[in-house]
């Protein structure tokens, strides 16, 4: 790797630090909370960018994986399991550190967060493989429809199951403790650390994805995007790669959901909703599909505006409109020469109109 490729990463690091310092100096520390949440949503967007942009598989069910990560850890890290764990037999588990007391939620016994993370990752992987093997045989619109169906099922299950809190979701989730002194949670004294933690994860995601994209695997994915038949004629195992990428992007979504739930100390069924999935797809489209940095920028900007309530009650409508607009005027995203050319042309035309 040469310096030219690293400079982007360095710029991102500087930008993250600059934002934090700026927020500190302007006395608006509160925006760090939304920026932290934005970071977790951006993880989903980045995963989807790999799946949609590079491998060409549109998934309308990614909110389901996000919610799965969130709900599972909410279940394990709130007082739900307390009664199960009161039995004497489990003292071994307690000694091994697999279950712990959480002072934040009335000393309830639940799974240690790190164990919960492991279980979430494992479950997501299994589910992604189970869903992926039959679904990824489908192509184009059929795949999108099938993932849409999957998303609806998962949404309804979370909405209708008692243990998942039905329409209320799960609240009072214990924070995710790391090294004893730092916790991913709602505690305002950890706000800055949480901000850095979230964006550290985003940075890791970018590094991982860049390595995938710039490797032989990345080229195979782009080949699949162009023509599955020709790619398989070149010796690319199309099914295997589609499945691996699907699993990776599902894991990214689940990790996003996992930390988001700990940070917000809870999760509701709207996170699994179809509109969330559509939103992720819209952001990747605006970012330019096969454009990691475009997706990162648009994911950050749009999610942040949405979380700050810029779009008011028209939040979902804005993302819908965005998707339509992008498909008509800038199908390759906003960060292309064609679009900037078109845009300049448009501005010029407007100016002529007014000068008349």
């Amino acid at each position, binding site marked *: 790797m040469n310096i030219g490729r690293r400079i982007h990463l360095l710029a991102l690091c500087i930008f993250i630090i600059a934002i934090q310092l700026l927020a500190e100096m302007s006395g608006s520390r509160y925006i760090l909370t939304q920026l932290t949440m934005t970071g977790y949503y951006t993880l989903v967007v980045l995963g989807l960018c790999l799946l949609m942009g590079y491998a060409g598989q549109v998934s309308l069910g990614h909110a389901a994986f996000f919610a799965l990560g969130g709900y599972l850890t909410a279940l394990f890290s709130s007082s739900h399991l307390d009664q199960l764990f009161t039995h004497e037999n489990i003292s071994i588990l307690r000694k091994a550190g697999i279950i712990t007391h959480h002072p934040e939620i009335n000393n309830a016994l639940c799974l240690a967060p790190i164990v919960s993370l492991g279980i979430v990752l494992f479950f997501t992987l299994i589910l992604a493989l189970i869903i992926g093997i039959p679904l990824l045989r489908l192509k184009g619109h059929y795949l999108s429809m099938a993932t849409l169906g999957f998303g609806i099922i998962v949404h309804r299950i979370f909405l209708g199951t008692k243990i998942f809190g039905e329409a209320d979701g799960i609240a009072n989730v214990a924070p995710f403790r790391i090294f004893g002194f730092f916790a991913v949670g709602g505690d305002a004294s950890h706000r800055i650390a949480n901000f850095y933690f979230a964006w550290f994860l985003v940075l890791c995601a970018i590094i991982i994805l860049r390595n995938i994209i710039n490797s*032989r695997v990345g*080229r*195979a994915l*782009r*080949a699949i*995007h*162009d*023509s599955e*038949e*020709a*790619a*398989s*004629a*070149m*010796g*690319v*195992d*199309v*099914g295997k790669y589609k499945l691996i990428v699907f699993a990776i992007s599902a894991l990214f979504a689940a990790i996003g959901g996992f930390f988001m739930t700990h940070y917000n100390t809870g999760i509701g069924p709207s996170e699994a909703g179809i509109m969330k999935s559509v939103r992720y797809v819209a952001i990747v489209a605006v970012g330019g599909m*096969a454009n990691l940095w475009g997706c990162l920028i648009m994911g950050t900007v749009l999610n942040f505006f949405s979380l700050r309530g810029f779009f008011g009650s028209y939040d979902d409508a804005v993302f819908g409109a965005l998707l339509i607009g992008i498909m008509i005027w800038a199908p390759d995203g906003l960060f292309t020469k064609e679009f900037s050319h078109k845009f300049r042309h448009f501005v010029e035309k407007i100016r002529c109109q007014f000068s008349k």
Partner: protein
Amino acid sequence: MLRVRNLVSGYGNLTIIRSVSLHVKAGEIVTIIGGNGAGKTTLLNTIAGIIQCREGEIVFEHENISKFSADKIAAKGLCLVPEGRQIFSDMTVRENLEMGAYIRYKKENKEEINTDIEKMYNLFPILQNRKHQRAGTLSGGEQQMLAIARALMGRPKLLILDEPSLGLAPIIVQQIFAIIKEIRNMGNTILLVEQNAKAALKIADRGYVMETGQILLEGTTSELFENRDVQRAYLGKEYRHINE
């Protein structure tokens, strides 16, 4: 090298290939000619594993590959240049060539692949001029050359070409066929499917005539050239003219 026995294949309920048998020996150019809808492309796609065959067997280098998936067959050294080129249009010309050597990246070092890319540039000088251009911006003839070069990058034991003359101007077709001959002289084995029967028979050693999913005729190219039915149906000679 390749032996196909009683192959049956099709899409869904439709049977297109009805009991086809053929063989290709090492070092040969074998052509399959036939009109539209004869089943030529379906036959090739079945051999290359893109479509699964229903009955019969495909033996490649003493190994039954009829149940293999397309990528395994490609790894065995049987490479298809698909109909309509199907180059990777969003990649540059060079990336397309590197993609062609995909199966070799595991085993071999990069330098050997780079020298092969240089060889391709020698064979197709136009590709060298365009190496950083997006493949989708090439003309039809250049795309066909790229598709052939990409397939050669995998160092196939058998190269299968599906209608390389499709949609190209006659002069370009001549160039492409001259290159195909050159590729054979370099020691490759080629199975060539064509509608342009005259051009195909000129460079091939043996040929098969295909119609409605069956092989009607087979023989050396001179035999096929002499055959009156072939002359009438595929070489554009008048019935009267033949009888005179």
